[in-house]
């Protein structure tokens, strides 16, 4: 009897989790703003940069890499940051405002599952976008394939943990959808600048370079560039990302409001 109801129980949970992911995926597909920011924009930039003569230069500071090759890890960081900071928090904040989290709290499924489903969908989109990004860079623009793919995966995975933790923290503290947009932009643009989207980190003044080293996104670009060139990244960028993940993850957990 117990085993029967346990089996029944777990199959219900399995189906509920699947349905939640399915409905979040549908919503992402039907409001493609997120896909445009997180996938379309970085891929568009990749193609654009690939065509610009300036990006074919090999400046001295980049250790033999072309500007374009150095830009690929930045665009990878862009994908993760855009999904984590510009896309993830919006639905979660509106679910709170609309009372959806509250409504779910009186079903057998905890509202934290909805948050998890939202994370799963965005992480899946990030994964696909990153595969396409590196694929196109290597296949169409002659960038050398990552020499240490394991280290690249580790770097980007840590980057995702750090940035999605920050995104959840933003969703936790944003009082409403209006303020959320300001907080999102206010965190995304400085971080992506410090990661070297407009000016490579190596060409920044020392003070900005030092700041960049301690941001999760700057650390991610450094670690990913090392991995691309076949050097296992040093401990510092990895620890910086892990630190952001832990701090913002715990803060999000602590401060998340369900209604």
């Amino acid at each position, binding site marked *: 009897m117990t085993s029967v109801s346990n089996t*029944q*129980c777990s199959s*219900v949970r399995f*189906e*509920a989790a*699947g*349905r*939640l992911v399915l*409905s979040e995926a*549908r*919503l992402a597909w*039907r*409001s493609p703003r997120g896909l445009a920011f997180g996938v379309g924009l970085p891929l568009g930039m990749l193609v654009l940069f690939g065509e610009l003569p300036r990006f074919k230069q090999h400046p001295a500071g980049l250790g033999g890499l072309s500007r374009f090759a150095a830009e690929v890890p930045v665009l990878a960081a862009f994908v993760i940051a855009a999904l984590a900071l510009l896309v993830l928090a919006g*639905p979660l904040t*509106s*679910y709170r405002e*609309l*009372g*959806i989290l*509250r*409504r779910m*709290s*009186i*079903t*057998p*499924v905890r509202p934290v599952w909805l948050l998890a489903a939202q994370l799963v969908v965005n992480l899946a989109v990030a994964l696909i976008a990153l595969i396409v990004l590196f694929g196109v860079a290597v296949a169409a623009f002659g960038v050398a394939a990552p020499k240490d793919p394991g280290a690249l995966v580790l770097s980007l995975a840590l980057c995702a943990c750090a940035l999605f933790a920050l995104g959840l923290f933003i969703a936790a503290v944003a009082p409403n959808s209006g303020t959320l947009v300001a907080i999102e932009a206010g965190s995304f643009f400085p971080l992506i600048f410090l990661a070297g989207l407009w000016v490579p980190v190596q060409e920044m003044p020392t003070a900005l370079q030092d700041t960049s080293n301690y941001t999760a996104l700057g650390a991610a670009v450094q670690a990913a560039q090392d991995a691309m060139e076949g050097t296992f990244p040093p401990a510092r960028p990895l620890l910086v990302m892990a630190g952001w993940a832990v701090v913002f993850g715990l803060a999000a957990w602590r401060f998340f409001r369900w209604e």
Partner: protein
Amino acid sequence: MTTNPAASGRGRPVVQVDHLRKVYGETVAVDDVSLTVAEGEIFGVLGPNGAGKTTTVECVTGLRRPDGGSVRVLGLDPQCQAAQLHQLVGAQLQFSAHPDKLRVGEVLDLYRSFYRRPADLTELIEGLGLAGKLRTYYRSLSGGQKQRLSIALALIGSPRVAVLDEMTSGLDPQARRDTWDLVESLRGRGVTILLVTHFMEEAERLCDRLALIDRGRIVATDTPAGLADRVKGGKLVRFTPSGPFDDRLLLDLPEVRSLERNARRAVVTGIGDLVNAVILTLAAAGVTAHEVELGTSSLEDAFVELTGRHAQPAGASR
């Protein structure tokens, strides 16, 4: 009225609220509320704006943690045994929405997947008039359709107890009657229903028993008829007299308590065989009563008398 299992002694208590107290900051939302709902009963919670009705049922569904007293639903503590409770209790909240870009059928399938014993979807959506709307986006639904979807979601897990908070507000009269039919059919299947309402007609039509709440306290708990009987003793006759008559003629009758007149009509309240007493006395004085209407004092009269306030206008909130 349908048989009342509580009155016939068959129903065991399903919802037990004892000396419930809930405070928001300085505001005492619920001061001292005790009520017991028997199995298979439709129990109404009635009261003016801000009386604590919604807070009371939110403590029953586990949405809010009581500051004092105890709540048991099917023997479970809504705070500590929430997971078990939510398989057995379905609730419709006053304010809740769904993502604009999900279709009705998708929302129903999603919530259906949360429960071990989901309800028969076809029957549910037909009872609520949503059958043609399964492919419609949530944002394209009218207010009444959204309301009916929220009732459907409360019932989608085949709950043993359904908590419905202002379920028919925003519904047109036909949809309201259809919803009442659906709720009555649920009672027919033994579902216990806790209903928060401010519609007197709804309370009178559906509820086996009612608790009248005012300022966070229970003022009275009784059947709708029992509550109505508590005021004024009950009867009322309206008529148009064929000619003038002296007020004293009627006021002197032992059955008559009061007489009011406006331009054409006269309204007499009283007890006993009021109608015959009034008509025969008038006839003896050569006056005929035309367009006679009879009434008993209503639940609404009881509401006003017991709380000293008028019922909320339709569409009002907690």
